[in-house]
């Protein structure tokens, strides 16, 4: 019976080619517009580290101004910590792992004769960074705690830099020169680009991963100021670098690894006790207001999904609604035009169910066609977005369709078409067997 309905549907589509084409086009365009935005939104709000996103927590302490909250609207504490607090929490080592890091810029001087020095983006961090964030290595690995403690000049390179400087060879144990200092390579990272860049979204949630990683202790020792954001609510006293380290400026990100509710609660209690002890020293003038968000909560709190995308999501959804209203209207017109046919079929013994099945199959076919073309439209839409943002490298990461999005597009199209078919089909089923026969 199903094949018969398919045949009837195909026949009906062929007898009204313009009307059918209009319906398929409306669904395809609606799906294309909607899925383009949905895809960008889906990638922007994705889970960058699915295996551990429930175990990694972003530390936020409210060390801000007594008279003025860090965020007037939400009263969220700063999204970075001071050097004082970062080192205190690192030394306390109350979590399974703790990592502090900040962005630095370095100049790499390649060993080859005549090769020009070039700028690399860097991250100063503690050795646990690599294990904590599941960073994949091609060669070697991170550095150990002893290197952290002794301020050893070691470095982890990205694959791109290793390709450029060492021609892709295993460079573990070799040395590179940065800003006049020699560093020993301990490892080379494989391609690793979490989207969003959850571990530091302060200068752009979709930026690329850094190209070199150096020990936190070395960076502090070399007086490397951060190349990310530095925010201060109090004047930094005179006294150069040391005074800056002791200031209330926030400029580094702190993450801890905890497993389960009990550990989370214990660490939160520890943070609150730490802040209480600092209050006795005259710091932390605000009420206790600490946060310990996991990866997803952190990305939501920092609004990494751009407002532009959310506005477009609302408008695109309404766009699909218009396309569907259009389809309902056209399907209804089609059904009413064939009232006589339906009436005749019913008079000859077709059940209501049979008539219903026939029109649902036809709508499904239109939906499938609209969905398949809609996938193409989505691809066109994403290509268009990529073109509009050609100057922004990171947008390329946001306009990629995976099979989940393709399936979603086709399913959404079929569901929309079936949804749109409900009312017209109901009208078709209600046509009385004899009502239209008289006029024939």
């Amino acid at each position, binding site marked *: 019976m199903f094949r018969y309905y398919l045949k009837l549907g195909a026949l009906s589509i062929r007898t009204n080619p313009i009307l059918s084409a209009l319906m398929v086009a409306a669904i395809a365009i609606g799906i294309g517009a909607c899925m383009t935005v949905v895809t960008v939104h889906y990638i922007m709000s994705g889970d960058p580290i699915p295996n551990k996103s429930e175990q990694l927590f972003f530390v936020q302490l409210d060390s801000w101004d007594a008279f*003025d909250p860090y965020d007037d609207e939400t009263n969220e504490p700063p999204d970075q910590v001071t050097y004082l607090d970062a080192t205190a929490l690192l030394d306390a080592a109350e979590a399974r792992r703790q990592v502090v890091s900040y962005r630095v810029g370095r100049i790499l001087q390649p060993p080859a004769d005549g090769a020009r020095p070039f*700028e690399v983006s860097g991250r100063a961090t503690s050795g646990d960074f690599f294990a904590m964030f599941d960073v994949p290595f091609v060669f070697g690995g991170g550095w150990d705690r002893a290197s952290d403690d002794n301020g050893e000049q070691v470095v982890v390179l990205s694959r791109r830099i290793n390709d450029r400087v060492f021609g892709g060879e295993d460079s573990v144990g070799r040395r590179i020169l940065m800003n006049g200092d020699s560093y020993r390579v301990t490892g080379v990272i494989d391609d690793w680009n979490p989207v969003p860049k959850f571990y530091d979204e302060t200068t752009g949630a979709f930026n690329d991963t850094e190209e070199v990683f150096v020990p936190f202790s070395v960076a502090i020792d070399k007086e490397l100021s951060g190349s990310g954001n530095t925010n201060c609510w109090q004047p930094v006293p005179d006294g150069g670098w040391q005074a800056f380290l002791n200031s209330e400026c926030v400029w580094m990100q702190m993450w801890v690894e905890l497993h389960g509710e009990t550990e989370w609660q214990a660490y939160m209690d520890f943070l609150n006790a730490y802040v209480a002890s600092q209050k006795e020293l005259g710091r932390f003038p605000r009420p206790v207001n600490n946060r310990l968000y996991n990866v997803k909560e952190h990305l939501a709190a920092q609004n990494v999904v751009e407002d532009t995308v959310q506005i477009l999501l609302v408008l695109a959804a309404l766009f699909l609604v218009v396309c569907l209203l*259009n389809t309902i209207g056209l399907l209804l017109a089609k059904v009413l035009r064939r009232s006589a046919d339906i009436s005749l079929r019913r008079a000859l013994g077709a059940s209501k169910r049979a008539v219903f099945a026939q029109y649902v199959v036809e709508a499904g076919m239109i939906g499938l066609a609209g969905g398949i073309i809609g996938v193409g439209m989505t691809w066109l839409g994403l290509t268009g977005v990529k073109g509009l943002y050609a100057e922004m490298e990171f947008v390329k990461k946001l306009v990629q369709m995976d099979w989940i999005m393709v399936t979603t597009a086709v399913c959404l199209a079929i569901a929309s078409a079936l949804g749109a078919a409900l009312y017209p089909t109901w009208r078709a089923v209600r046509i009385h067997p004899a009502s239209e026969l008289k006029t024939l």
Partner: protein
Amino acid sequence: MEFGPVLRAMMHNRSGYVLIALQIAVTMAIMVNAIAIIQERTRLMARPSGIDEDNIFYLSSLVFQPDVDQRVMIDEDLEALRNTPGVVDAISTNSVPLRGGGWSMSLQTEPGAEVDGSGTAIYFVDEHGIDTFGLNLIAGRNFRPEEVVWNDPQSNRWPPAGILTRALAETLFPDEAPADVVGRTVYINQDNPVQILGIIDVMQAPWSGWNGVERSMLVPERREWDYNRYVVRTEPGSRDRLMPQIEEMLATRSQERIVMDMRTMNETRKLSYLDDAALVKILTFITTLLTIITGLGIVGLASFSVSRRTKQIGTRRALGASRPAILRYFMLENFLVSSVGVGGGAILAVALNIWMVEAFDLAPMRWYVVPVAMLALWLVGQLAVAGPARRATLVPPAVATRTV
């Protein structure tokens, strides 16, 4: 006249007309809000940065060897830049308008930690700053060479003088004319006094998305950073020729640094507003597409309605109705549906706008967008129905006699 019969006929087949009216209403809600956003973004993009954008470019010099005497290097670089034929003037500074990254501080009219301040962008310049950026000094005076100091890395004291933008002066002293605040003292870093030496008309902060983007201050200080940004203003027409030449000159002057990130102000503006420009294009595209789809939907349904009523039209013609009367019938029918649609659409559009303003911090739309969109959709409806209605007028009266 025919209003009654048209309406009564429509009531017989309500659902089709309700669908069209709904479609028009949602189309209008999207259209109005898209236009409101397009207007707002276009307005933002049109704001002047206050500097001579067409003739300015900048580049960075990054020292990577320890023990380089920065002061000597910067002085020599600036001298070489200023003596290059075709260069109007040049400075070493920390940022430029629209660049996205910069330095901000809080200024207050009274000293003290508990006093509320106003955020402002900081540009470190020397006495060539106003000339290099091409700023318009509307009151007071420029810095004198002896007022420009090198910063002391061990100290966080600020120079005791500054030049403010008009907007910043108005924020700090809302009850006074900007020209009258020259000579007054404001406080930076809670208690460092800064005397206002002059007022410049407009100079944007480096962050185009900041709501205080008009607030900037020039500070007469030079800084020994590894990272040093030179801003160069050229004579009109010489910029593109000078850019590679100056990049090469700086690169060869010293082997202890790299020269990078050279960019014109025109490119900087484009990058700064890339998101807004893209959104304007996307929304324009969506609105156009939507109008076409709704128009085609009206054409489809009207054609159907005409073909279904061929016999009825024939009968009316046979009973003496003229062709214009038939045309009027369908145009009036569409007008009624459109009216219901745009009426509902106006309510929907305003509701959606109120919600979006609340949810996304958008500027509320201008009142006239709603009536303009109503008119536009009425027009689209009438145009769309014109074709099928014309075909209706061609139905011959003889049709009435056939199938009965």
